[in-house]
């Protein structure tokens, strides 16, 4: 009796177990399929957008388009001044933010004070990276354009952009410094090198490729930002190429916006906007890929040496 009962019970148990198991597996199958589908949907939407713009832009792109001045009140010709303007803005903003950015990362990571001030620095960096870009634009307008009287100029625009990219440069440089193994510092200090000698001779040369990544990421961000230069640097049309840092400039992202919203003859200007979008996309993608490439190489280097 008892035997039969146990037997029945265990049969029941095996049955329910296997039922549950298939149930479990079906659930897993459905859930993972939904996740996979959503993932492929998202990627194909994003790739589709980029592909659409590349396809449309490729028809307009030529050497003349890139190296010629605009003609016939922006309805034909090239976009050279916009490319040059973006180059000026990006170069200056990186110069302005690289020194304080790298210094800040070194200070936080190598000297690592545990005080109120360094907490404050960290909180400021986090918040600065979340400030809406248009707010940077207003700050630049009030301080650089009006207060300091730089006017709408390359200088005002690149100073504004430099604040936008400062948190990016600080946090990626810090990340780079963190990957340098502690044993390097200890070995250098053990040989009698001072703290700064260790940083200058050992840490920085090692971290240099990753610091380059930080700067490249900053370049990519600065090249694509529109809102910060809306009131501080950019104009739709300038008669000549900028002569000094106090000239106003044309810039690629602003040019796309202006062509499509302020243009008077969309028939001719929308193709130009497609071309601009392709050039900007190309720039940003190349910049990002090179940053990713350097970082990957650096990471695998440390993975190989066993740190």
């Amino acid at each position, binding site marked *: 009796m008892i035997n039969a009962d146990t037997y029945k019970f265990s049969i029941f148990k095996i049955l329910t177990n296997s039922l549950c198991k298939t149930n479990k597996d079906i659930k897993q199958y459905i859930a993972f399929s939904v996740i996979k589908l959503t993932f492929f949907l998202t990627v194909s*939407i994003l790739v589709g957008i980029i592909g659409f*713009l590349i396809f449309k832009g490729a028809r307009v792109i030529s050497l003349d388009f890139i190296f010629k001045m605009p003609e016939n009140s922006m309805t034909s010709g090239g976009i050279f001044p916009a490319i040059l303007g973006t180059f000026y803005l990006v170069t200056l903003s990186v110069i302005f933010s690289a020194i304080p950015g790298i210094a800040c990362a070194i200070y936080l990571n190598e000297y690592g004070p545990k005080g109120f001030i360094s907490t404050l620095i960290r909180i400021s960096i986090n*918040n600065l990276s979340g*400030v809406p870009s*248009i707010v940077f634009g*207003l700050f630049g307008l009030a301080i650089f354009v009006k207060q300091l009287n730089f006017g709408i100029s390359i200088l005002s625009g690149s100073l504004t952009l430099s604040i936008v990219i400062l948190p990016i440069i600080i946090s990626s440089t810090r990340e780079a410094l963190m990957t340098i193994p502690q044993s390097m510092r200890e070995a250098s200090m053990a040989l009698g090198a001072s703290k700064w000698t260790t940083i200058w001779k050992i840490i920085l040369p090692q971290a240099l490729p990753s610091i380059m990544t930080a700067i490249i990421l900053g370049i990519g961000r600065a090249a694509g930002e529109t809102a910060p230069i809306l009131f501080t640097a950019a104009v739709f049309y300038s008669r000549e190429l900028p002569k000094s840092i106090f000239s106003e400039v044309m810039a690629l992202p*602003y040019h796309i916006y202006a062509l499509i919203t302020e243009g008077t003859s969309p028939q001719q200007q929308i193709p130009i906007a497609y071309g601009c979008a392709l050039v*900007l996309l190309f720039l940003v993608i190349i*910049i990002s890929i090179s940053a990713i490439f350097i970082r990957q190489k650096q990471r695998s280097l440390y993975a190989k040496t066993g740190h």
Partner: protein
Amino acid sequence: MSIKSENFREKAIEYTLFILSLSAIIFLAGIIFTLIKEAIPAFKEIGFFKMLLSKDWYPTYDPPDFGILPLMAGTMVVTVIALLISIPLGLACAIYISELAGKREKVFLKPFIELLSSIPSVVYGFWGIVFLAPAIQKYFDIPSGYCAITSGIVLGIMSAPIIASLSEDSLNYVPKSFKEAAFALGSNKFETLMNVTIPAAASGIITSIILGTGRIIGETMVVLMLSGGAAIMPTSALEPVRPMTSAIAAEMGEAAFKTLHYYSLFAIALILFAITFVLNMLAEKISKKYRIKLGSSR
């Protein structure tokens, strides 16, 4: 003597680095100070609560009205639509990359998502104008494709990679031993994901959503190009709206320096800054807690 001079050099360098690293604090303080200084005249003249609660935004009329409620409502509608899109898409991508993708796929996918999140917003806005807005206009048969839903969709697509990348990080940080323990107890992959991995990464995922929300609220170019720009209280997603960022971007060019209109745009910027500031602090608090939680249980 040489030791003394070396000590001096060391100290000098440390102080120089310290002073340079104050730049982040100085800029943030400068932004806060400037916004408050330029916003105060608007609050004084119009009245803080009247500005916040009045439904009329007619800055160029005579007499002008400076009620920013419709602008805030516009921001809210667009943000909600964007989040409805970006949260599921972003989380699905994060889960796929960190849990389902093969090792080789993962090495390629993570940088790819980062690459997608670095595409400038003006490019997305441009795509919205040439592709999505006409499509929406046709599909819903409305007079203009520039409305809340168009900018919401573009913002959602645009911020999905940001949420994906941040959430993926937090899923990745969950210690392997957590999952192994769940497998050992007989859970399958899905049960482990739902009962162990996601709860352990929950605060990181929430942080990524909060940061993504901040990005969406502060995004300017997409809403400027696609929202339609009507400063009225929205009653449906198919109506044009004028979110706060687009009002600032569209009107600052016309507003004369140091007029009430100029000050009131700074007041909007101050409110916008306050919203993102609170979101950032919230994200920081949650992620700090999360680090402690995972650290102690490891």
